[in-house]
């Protein structure tokens, strides 16, 4: 379970009216640690207005000589302002206050699909495709390719990313099959998938990779599954576990090389569902893509 950092809480590190300056080192340590926890932080050093954002909770942290009641009146209607005096406190103690307010603020829930960090839970690396609609031609290849229901189609017939958290972390394969280089993964290691500018060479290279996918019969996952099944069959005959493990790793590496252009992580390859499930999902995805294309084809040309 991952604690969701509230989309309704804004933390204001305040050094405006009626407050003393926060020592530089503490200010930096506090802001850095709050950001690392996924909080939205604003720093204000002079006159500060709280009405800038419309969230329902603002936590004001400052070294106040007297509690600044006037701050609450700055906020937008419907915003609850929490003011805390942090004079003499350490960054760690202050973070405890922020966590406490975050936990008790309205609308904060435990959400397994949400990012953020908690003391006990792992983080979700925000890994999902982002579509560059300046380039996208709505060809639906990504919808047809993805087995994990990441993509969908809007009522207006436009491709969209509908289930980000279904995406397999570190797998950029759909961006590799996009003929227009229109799918980004901002946290990917290299361009143009990470959002870097696209060169003519990139477009040519991506087109070549699409050709590779066609050569594989357009059904890469089935091919992978077949190969994986054959490998598993071999492993079942192996009595030496170490040898079997090495052979499995060797096969996975080989499989990875075969589809290197798609850059699918070994973890994703090795966790593919059964052949029947793959066929079923591929068929569903293909149908969705075809329906969307047919719908778009029937639209009047404007």
């Amino acid at each position, binding site marked *: 379970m991952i604690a969701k950092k509230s989309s309704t809480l804004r933390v204001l590190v305040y050094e405006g009216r009626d407050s003393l300056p926060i020592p530089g080192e503490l*200010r930096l340590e506090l802001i850095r640690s709050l950001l690392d926890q996924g909080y939205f932080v604003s*720093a204000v050093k002079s006159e500060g207005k709280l009405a800038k954002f419309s969230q329902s909770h603002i936590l004001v942290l400052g070294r106040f000589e007297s509690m600044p009641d006037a701050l609450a009146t700055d906020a937008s209607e419907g915003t609850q302002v929490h003011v805390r005096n942090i004079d003499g406190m350490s960054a760690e103690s202050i973070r405890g206050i922020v966590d406490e307010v975050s936990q008790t603020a309205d609308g904060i829930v435990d959400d397994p699909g949400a990012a*953020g960090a908690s003391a006990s839970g792992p983080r979700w690396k*925000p890994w*999902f495709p982002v579509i560059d609609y300046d380039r996208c031609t709505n060809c639906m290849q990504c919808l047809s390719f993805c087995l994990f229901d990441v993509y969908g189609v809007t009522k207006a017939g436009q491709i969209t990313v509908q289930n*980000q958290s279904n995406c397999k972390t570190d797998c950029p394969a759909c961006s590799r099959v996009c003929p227009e280089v229109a799918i980004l993964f901002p*946290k990917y290691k290299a361009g143009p998938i990470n959002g870097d500018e696209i060169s003519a060479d990139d477009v040519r290279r991506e087109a070549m990779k699409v050709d590779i996918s066609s050569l594989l019969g357009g059904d890469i996952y089935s091919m992978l599954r077949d190969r994986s099944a054959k490998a598993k069959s071999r492993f079942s005959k192996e009595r030496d576990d170490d040898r079997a493990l090495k052979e499995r790793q060797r096969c996975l590496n080989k499989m990875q090389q075969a589809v290197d252009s798609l850059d699918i992580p070994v973890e994703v390859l090795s966790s593919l569902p059964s052949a029947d499930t793959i066929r079923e999902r591929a068929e569903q995805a293909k149908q969705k893509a075809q329906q969307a294309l047919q719908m778009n084809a029937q639209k009047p040309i404007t």
Partner: protein
Amino acid sequence: MTQQRCVLFCRCAFARVVPDEVKNDVLTHLVDRAEPFDAVGDLCEMSARKDPMLADLASQGNLTVVACYPRAVKWLFSAAGAPLAAEGVEILNMRTETAASICNRLDGKPSEPLLSGESS
């Protein structure tokens, strides 16, 4: 009277794609300056959640986003239903620029000069 420029800093806290040195140095610079700024843990994560605060940020007229590739930032906001304005938005890329260059641009100074002997 000119509108004050808003600065939004992304810590890219949930991945290691922005060099630590760059994001730490830029954050230190922002924290030490007198100007107010907003900072988020991870723009990608906020975009995935379609966080309404992104719409608030996008509605700021004069906005400088200190994050990563401009194309990525533009479409992350768009994906959250909060498209950035076509004009008045500047995006500084911590994946490719040095901290010094970004800090200079935040301060309205020209970027780092080319090293002597280096030509463009």
